[in-house]
Structures are given as C-alpha cells and as structure tokens.
C-alpha cells in the first residue's frame, strides 16, 4: 500500500528498537546456516528481522503475517506484528512496545527471539559432532542432545557405516524456570546428564499442559542417585494448545517442544533406547578429536574385557576406581568377591556387543558405557545388558559404577 512520507523518519527507531534489543549485530550468519533441518519458524523469523533492520517494514509485516498463518499461536510473532503495526502510527523505541506490557512476558519473548535467531545463525557445523555421542549401538537409530543455554534440541542420526552421528534437525526447546543442574524435587531445574526415553505417554492420558504427548526420561540415573539428587518426572513433552511455544525458561524441569516439533521428533524415538543427553552448553569436537576420544575409550573397555578373560585379578581390578560403588558394594567388598569368583574359573569368555559410549556433559568428567555382555566360564554363563560409569581418575579412565541396565 502507499505509505505516506511522515512515517519514514520513524523507521530507524523500530529497527533500532528491535535489533538493538536483540543484539542482532553480534549475530553473524555462518556458512552452515543453510544446512538441513530448517524446520520451524526460525528462517522466516530471521527474514523478518532482516527486513526490520533494512527498514522494510511492510515486507516485515507481510512475512510476520505469513508466519502467523502457519503458526497461529506463535506469541513472539504476534508481538512483532504488534510492534510493526504500532510503528505505522507512531515511533516505537522498544521491542514489545505494547502499553502496560508486563515486563516479564516481554523479557520472555525477547529471550525466545534471541534463542531462535541465534540458533538459526549458529547451526552446528557438519564437521563437528557433539562430544557426548562417542559411540552408538547399531540398533539405536538416533540420539538427542539438548543445549539448555541455547534452548535447542539437536537430533542426530546414527550413521552405522562409520559410527558417526549425523545432524538431522534441531528444535527450539523450553527448559526449567530456574535453569539447569537439577538437584532436588521441586527446584524447577532441568537435570544435566545422560538419560534415555523410558516410555511414551499418549496425549489422551495427559493434561493440555503436555500438548500432544510426553516421553519420560530415566532421571534420576545411577549417577544422580549416587550424588543424592532428587526429584522425578522429567519428561520431553509438547506445548499447551493456547500457544505455539513457551519461553526458553518456563517448565518445572521438563524439556518442552512445540507440538509439531514433538510429533516430528517422535518418529525417531525408540522407547528404552534413544538417549537424551542434556547439557548446559554442548561441547563440539572436530571429527579427529572425536575419533581419538572414541578410540581411547573403546581401547580402555577392550582392555578391561581382555583382563577379565585373563583371570588376573590385579590386571582386572586396576580398571576400577577406589571410589567404586555398586549394588551396595564398595570397592573392597567388590574386590573380595571377584577374587573368590575368579579363583574358581578355569576359563572365562566375555563378548561385548551393541556397545554405546556417551560422555556425560558438564563438569563431571565421566562416560556412560552400555553393552550386551555374554559371559561364559567353565561353571556359569549369563547374558545381560550392563551399564558402567567410567570416570577420569589419575590420568586414565576407571569404572566407578557398574550394574545391569
């Protein structure tokens, strides 16, 4: 439509207000921005803000309205629309220029805008992998890595040709109101660690809060319990019907996705299998570094297996931490029991398969190792799925926990 000239001087205010508020100038598009997985509104949102910065407000409004046709309950887009419409009548100087707007809600939407735009600009490089996905078993098709600081969930595919995780898609997520590193019940924080999806709860059995489905995680895991961490009921779930998305920090500790994203994601989830690794901030490794770390750990696990077969107690026990604790046993009890058992054996055969190695995110330096263990000896045989926690101790990796998975 025709724009009367009197609006023109006002445009820079809006561009400043919005882009300044979002500190867009610090965001630079990277070459990887065009990688696959452009699900969700980020690309359009990015164009809207580009238009605003270039004072193309009519175009920005059109794109915002297109966005709203696609995502009718997208509150952030409504806020931008409000700003763009208001700017036609008067200068606006802030993001979310609504009169009497509750500051906390504006702040929430601003945080969401920043999170979405930053995620769009900082797509993971195809030449880097999350440090946590060191090895995935053949029957595990996908893995999920969450970055709470970036409000982002990354879906990786297990490429069984070379064991490399391949980036599939990423989604905006909400996490705990009070952040991450959950310690106790009701602290409104999201746990940091290596978890698995344990079940699928259909929307019919849930309240509207959970949107179109929920996938409980196995928080607290063995490590959490050992650390005395409390609470339960940490889920991946959807969004209530009255909004497309929630602010970056809004849940009681769950990881929340837009319903459409959860539906998309759910196609790739295997109950009891798919790992969900929640980090404060994903650490990325170059393929070389990733390969080195993966090999070192696999070597260490193989040493442990071979030493077990050797029936040399000292060689076997050197893989265990002095702080080892499992099934009510501390290291000394465990060592005593192993001495008795191994003394009986004339031979031991241990086969490991379907091995996974996931590094724990964050300060605590350990990896979670799982495998199918086929144990045979001259007296017994058993098959089990075993999980071990290997911790970095005295410059090497040692087992601090093991048990059936």
């Amino acid at each position, binding site marked *: *439509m*025709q724009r*009367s000239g009197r609006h023109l001087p006002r445009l820079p205010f809006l561009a400043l207000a919005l882009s300044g508020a979002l500190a867009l100038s610090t965001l630079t598009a990277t070459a990887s921005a065009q990688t696959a997985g452009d699900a969700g509104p980020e690309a359009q949102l990015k164009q809207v803000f580009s238009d605003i910065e270039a004072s193309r407000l009519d175009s920005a409004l059109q794109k915002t309205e297109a966005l709203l046709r696609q995502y009718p*309950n997208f*509150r*952030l*887009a*409504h*806020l931008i*629309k*409000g*700003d763009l*419409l*208001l700017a*036609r*009548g008067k200068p606006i100087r802030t993001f*979310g220029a*609504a009169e*009497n*707007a*509750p500051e906390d*809600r*504006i702040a929430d*939407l601003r945080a969401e805008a920043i999170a979405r735009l930053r995620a769009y600009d900082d797509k993971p490089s195809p030449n880097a992998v999350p440090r946590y996905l060191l090895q995935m078993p053949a029957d595990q098709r996908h893995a999920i890595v969450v970055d709470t600081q970036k409000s982002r969930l990354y879906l990786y595919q297990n490429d069984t040709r070379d064991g490399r995780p391949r980036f599939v898609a990423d989604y905006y997520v909400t996490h705990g109101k009070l952040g991450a590193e959950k310690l106790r019940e009701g602290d409104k924080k999201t746990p940091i660690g290596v978890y698995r999806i344990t079940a699928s709860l259909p929307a019919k059995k849930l309240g509207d809060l959970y949107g179109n489905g929920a996938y409980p995680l196995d928080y607290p895991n063995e490590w959490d319990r050992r650390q005395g961490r409390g609470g339960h009921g940490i889920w991946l779930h959807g969004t209530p019907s*009255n909004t497309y998305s929630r602010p970056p920090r809004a849940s009681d500790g769950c990881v929340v996705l837009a319903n459409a994203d959860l539906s998309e994601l759910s196609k790739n989830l295997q109950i009891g299998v798919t790992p969900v690794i929640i980090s404060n901030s994903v650490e990325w490794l170059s393929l070389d570094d990733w390969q080195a770390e993966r090999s070192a750990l696999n070597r260490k696990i193989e040493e442990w297996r071979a030493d077990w077969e050797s029936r040399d107690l000292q060689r076997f026990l050197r893989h265990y931490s002095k702080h080892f604790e499992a099934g009510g046993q501390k290291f000394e009890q465990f060592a005593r029991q192993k001495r008795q058992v191994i003394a009986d054996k004339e031979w031991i055969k241990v086969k490991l398969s379907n091995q996974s190695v996931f590094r724990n995110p964050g300060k605590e330096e350990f990896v979670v190792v799982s495998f199918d263990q086929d144990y045979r000896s001259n007296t017994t045989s058993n098959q089990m799925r075993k999980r071990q926690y290997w911790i970095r101790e005295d410059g090497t990796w040692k087992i601090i926990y093991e048990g059936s998975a």
Partner: protein
Amino acid sequence: MHPASPKPRPARPLALSSLLVCLCLAVAAPIAQADDLSDAQKLVRQKQLPQALAKIDAYLAVKPKDAQGRFTRGVILTEMGRSADAITVFQRLTEDYPELPEPYNNLAVLYAQQKQYEKARTALEMAIRTNPSYSVAHENLADVYAKLASQAYGKALQLESSNPGTPSQLAMLRDLNGATAKPAAAAPAQPAQPAQAPAASSITQPVVAGRSASGPVRVAAGEVASPPPVAEKPAAKAPLAEPAKTESVKTEATRTESAKAGDKAAEKKEDKAADKSGKVEADIERALRNWAAAWSRKDVRAYLASYAPDFQTPRGVSRKAWEAERTQRIDKPGKIEVMVEDVRISLNGDKATVRFRQSYKSATMKSSTGKTLVFVRSGGAWLIQQERVG
C-alpha cells in the same frame, strides 16, 4: 475530513461526519426525486431515521443504481444500528464503484465497530489504493493498525485486557463527495471547529490563475478534481444537503475583498502579458459572480442569460425543458444565497474551465459543493457552456 459527530470524542475529532457535501448526482432527475435524496439526508441529521430510510427507498425505487442514494442509504442503516445491512450496501458499492474510496472507508468503519479489524484494514487499504491521498482513510487506518497492534500484543502477552472494550470509533463518511482530494491537498480533515480552520488551510493551492478567495475554512470536498464517479450524468445545481458552516458564508465577502486587494497588489508586479491574462480572468470571474448573484437575487432572466446558446443541458434534455426546470427551482419561495469561493480558472483561448466551491443556502437547505463551469467567450461576454458538479 469533516466535523465531528455530535458525540464528543476525546481521542480525535473525526467520528461521524456531519458535513454533507453532496455530489448532486440526482439533480438531473425529476425534482421530486432530488428532494427525496436531500430530504433523506436532512432527516438523517435530524435523527429521524425511519423517515429518512423511507425517503431514500423512494428515491432508490426510481434510481436503484444511484451511488449517492445508495451511499446515503448505507449511512442511514448505519445510524439505525443495522450494521449487517449497511455492510451489504457499502460492500456492493465497492463492487459497483471500485474507484470510490468512501464506501471502502465506511465499510471499514462498520467492520471496526464489530472489532473485525483485519477486514477493516483491508477495506481501508483498498480505499487508499484507490485514492492515495485520502486522509480520512489514512487516519482511520492508523486507528485500525493501533487496534490490530493491541490485539497482537494481547495474543503475544496473554493480556487479560487485550481487546480494549470500546470498539473503534472511526470516521464514518456521510457523503460520497469529499474524499478525492488532490495530492497537494493531502486531504486535510475538515476541522470540527471553525477556530481550527487556519491550521487546515495552510496548503497551497495548485495552479491558480486569477484566484479570488482562498478561504481559510476549507472543505475537503472543495478540492475535488476527479469527475463525478457515478454513471449518472452530472447536471444542474440544485444543491442538496447541509454543510458549509455559516461562518464560512459570512466571512466570504470580506475574504473576497481582501483577496481582491491581494490580486491588485500582485497585478502591479506582473508583466504586461500576465497583466493581460489577469484581466481576462477577472472578466471570467466577474461573469461567474454575476451568475451567482443573479441566482441569489432569483433573477431568472439574468441567471438564464449567463448560459451560452450551446449550453450542454444535463442528459441532453431540451433547452426549453431545462429552462423550465431551473425557473421553477429558482422561483421557489424563500431567500436564496449563492456564494462562490476558491475560484480557480484555467484559461485556454476562448474557453475557460472554472473550478470553485459553491455555497448554497435557502430557506430549507444549506450546501457546499465543488463545481466546475466551462465558460466560452461570446463576443465581449463569457457564457456558461457546461456545468457540472465536482
């Protein structure tokens, strides 16, 4: 635009226009019909809505396509609170006369009253597309944008009071005329109070030679330059409807004098050629004023003598029939006062197109309307060859 509605509106003095500037589209029709239209418009102002509706329906029974009549009917229905019917009327007008901005504007007003702001916005954007300098639509659109912004914020922030309780009070136009201002005029809103008039008059007039008075009280409609937007043939005067503040009529004479003084001062500075052309234009203006004066005196003979022998009668009726109609019209009992203002003359050899604002006041009616007369030189005199509204 036009003065404010009777309702006080603190926000902006727009609201329902009370100034009826008429296109006088109906004047060529039998006088009874023209009376129906003007009567209807008058009855609206007197809030006698059922009577107004009856009048306009009678009028439209004869002239079902008449844009002004249909428009007036839409206004009446709006006033009666029959929004759905009014919407239908204005909607059909936008379909039949897509070049007219006013029906879009009023459609938008009705949608806004129903809080259908997206529809209101679309209609207003159409109004502006048809007429980019249409200030009423711009102001209304700004209002609608604000409402939409408020709605958007409500959705964004989940505000309880996201939807301000009061539906939008946009400016409803009463009449078809008046929106189609020239770009230079940027369509100043007609001030509600005469006191505000000077502010609205600061716009310079386009191409004026031999101007007389550029009155401080400007009716937006006065700048109408486009031809009457309706299929009906424009015709003789018979101004209908109310309008023009008495003040403007009263001050007319004074302003003319001062303007003339200004002209004289200007003339001194002009070179001879300009001086000469100024003289011709003065002659034309004199002819115009004589015509208006004869009409005011109800001097039918002098009035009719202002018209050229080849005057193009409305609808091609015979000269005799036209003269009879005019005689009957002018001869009605009661005083008539006809004023001309904002005279702009464009001279082309022996032909001159004169645009001006005609204020008409009789015992039963007041009006202010833009008018164009085409004068031709006939011997030493300038006579009217064409007359049209707008």
